[in-house]
């Protein structure tokens, strides 16, 4: 039972991170290698609001998430929009340098010391007993709940709201969408904001639950294995991808070798690339076949 709980918690974290990859990929066909660093920035935004604005989590957390979303808009406006028309690889490299810049900015302001924002908010993280004998921390439960809420909210937004439908249209065929009067730059900026918001949410939860230091970005690299296994352009596939990758990772930690567990997402990724490169639910046409 403990293992199952561990898988679900890890998968939720991966879903929160993977949402960012999928949204950005759908909007601009770019793999955002800075997603993990956006998560880290979200965590530090929480630390910043807690220490400077208010220690109340009801003020600090929404403020940190708003900062996260704003960073996403800025990134689109300053870095990704000028890259329109350049080769995709160049845009990916820009996200790499964005990741470097974010990490450096954080180290310059907060040094690379490990921080714990949770005590600063006067909150504790009590263990929760689940039926079946497994124990998780309270914030683990919050992580699972917010991953579910985020996915549910995104589904409703993309399927039902006018703006969401426009967003899907712009992602599918920007030229056609623009012809019909859709301002796709605004929508792409919104995609980046949502992606960065999801990353910040993951960062806030992880920083409160575990720890906060500038090297959190590595988690993001693991999460793109999740996005690829599920299909880079499929939000629904994320859940399956996250569960598969998290299961493999937890099983290797418990039964094989903790060192190997760090690479197990990448082994899943390699296997997926060999067998079904477009992922479980990805669009096959997305992959330019040779």
């Amino acid at each position, binding site marked *: 039972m403990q293992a199952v709980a561990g898988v679900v918690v890890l998968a939720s974290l991966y879903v929160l991170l993977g949402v960012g990859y999928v949204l950005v990929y759908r909007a601009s066909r770019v793999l955002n290698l800075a997603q993990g660093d956006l998560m880290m920035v979200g965590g530090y935004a929480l630390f910043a609001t807690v220490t400077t604005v208010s220690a109340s989590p009801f003020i600090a957390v929404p403020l940190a998430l708003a900062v996260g979303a704003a960073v996403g808009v800025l990134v689109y406006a300053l870095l990704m929009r000028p890259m329109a028309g350049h080769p995709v*690889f*160049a845009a*990916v490299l820009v996200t*790499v340098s964005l990741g470097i810049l974010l990490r*450096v900015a954080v180290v*310059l302001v907060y040094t690379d010391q490990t921080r714990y924002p949770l005590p600063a908010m006067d909150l504790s993280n009590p263990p929760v007993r689940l039926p079946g004998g497994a124990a998780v921390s309270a914030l683990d439960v919050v992580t699972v709940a917010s991953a579910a809420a985020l996915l549910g909210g995104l589904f409703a937004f993309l399927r039902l709201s006018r703006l969401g439908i426009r967003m899907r249209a712009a992602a599918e065929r920007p030229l056609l969408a623009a012809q019909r009067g859709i301002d796709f730059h605004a929508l792409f900026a919104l995609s980046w904001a949502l992606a960065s918001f999801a990353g910040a949410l993951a960062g806030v939860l992880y920083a409160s639950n575990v720890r906060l230091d500038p090297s959190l970005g590595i988690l993001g690299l693991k999460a793109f294995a999740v996005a690829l296994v599920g299909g880079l352009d499929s939000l629904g596939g994320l859940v399956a991808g996250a569960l598969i990758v998290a299961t493999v990772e937890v099983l290797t930690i418990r039964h094989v070798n903790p*060192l190997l567990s760090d690479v197990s997402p990448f082994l899943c990724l390699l296997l997926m690339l*060999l067998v079904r490169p477009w992922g479980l639910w990805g669009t096959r046409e997305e992959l330019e*076949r040779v």
Partner: protein
Amino acid sequence: MAYGSGYFKTTYEADMALVDTRLRRLALATLIVGLAVLPRVASPFVLELVTQTALAAVGALALNMLTGLAGQISLGHAGFLCAGAFTVGILTESVKAPPLVTLPAAAVVGGLLGLVVGVPSLRLKGLYLALGTLAMHFVVLYVASEYQARWGFNTGVSVPAPTVAGVRFRSGVQWYYVLVAFAMLTTFLSVNLGRSRVGRAWMAIHDREIAAASLGIAVARYKLLAFVASSVLTALAGALWAYYRSFVSVEAFSFVVTIEFIAMIVIGGMGSTLGALLGAGFVTLLPYGIDAVVGALAPGGAAPYWLFPLKFGAFGLLMALFLVFEPLGLVGIWRRARTWVVLWPLRYAPLRTVR
């Protein structure tokens, strides 16, 4: 000024010549003589910098062959370096193998790894290929760290100074000559690739695969060849790195190293030999340049904690600036400046930029 026009050649010999004008021959001779006598005049620190640049140049040229010429994206460059370095480390540690055994072994390991990574490139393109190479990087690093953990080299494997034909390579000057010669050979290879069937096939594949195939280029074979050639060179660079540093450890081959090499070819100018060399020099010397500036502004005192992030950030910022504003890199700037000087006071650009 004697300056090759680039499109007025009267013989095939002139068209194929590596250095075609007197000015260029003179410049090349000066460079070679300069590099040969440098150890007599320069301080050990300067020599060390040139040596590091030479080693970085080999890696950058190898990556440039794969990404710049053949157009295959690789995010696994540090993995190849790591494979070469650990081949040397493991062979010297376990069987005391001499360099004449370990270097070819490193090349073979690199080649096999390149083949393994290259095979998916036959099916995958662009981002997906990049992801595959990145995954390979983590797998290679895992194998290396597993070796370190299993055999009790927690911090790393030390490699004794190699002995070839009775000469023990340990001093900085010796390594300067070895690595500069290696870099020059690689440069020569890289320049020649642009004039030979292989390099031109790679460029054709880069531009448009279907067109290349219809011209009779065996796309699959040349793609694999690009991966193998690049990874053999990179693994060799890694092997020499291991001997030069006399120490191998997984920590030295993180993803940041891959980014550094990509930054070299991006800042230098994708697809150009000169660009890879300029980029290697730029990225290697940048941190020392920042050190010097900071030292001049705030003399004395210990290095402040923000110095390291500052260096890292400067390099990230420069890479972003080059990608956004100057995709042709340093070599693009150089070409524009040269054209401007040659044509002055006229302003018309030549019909075709020359090499």
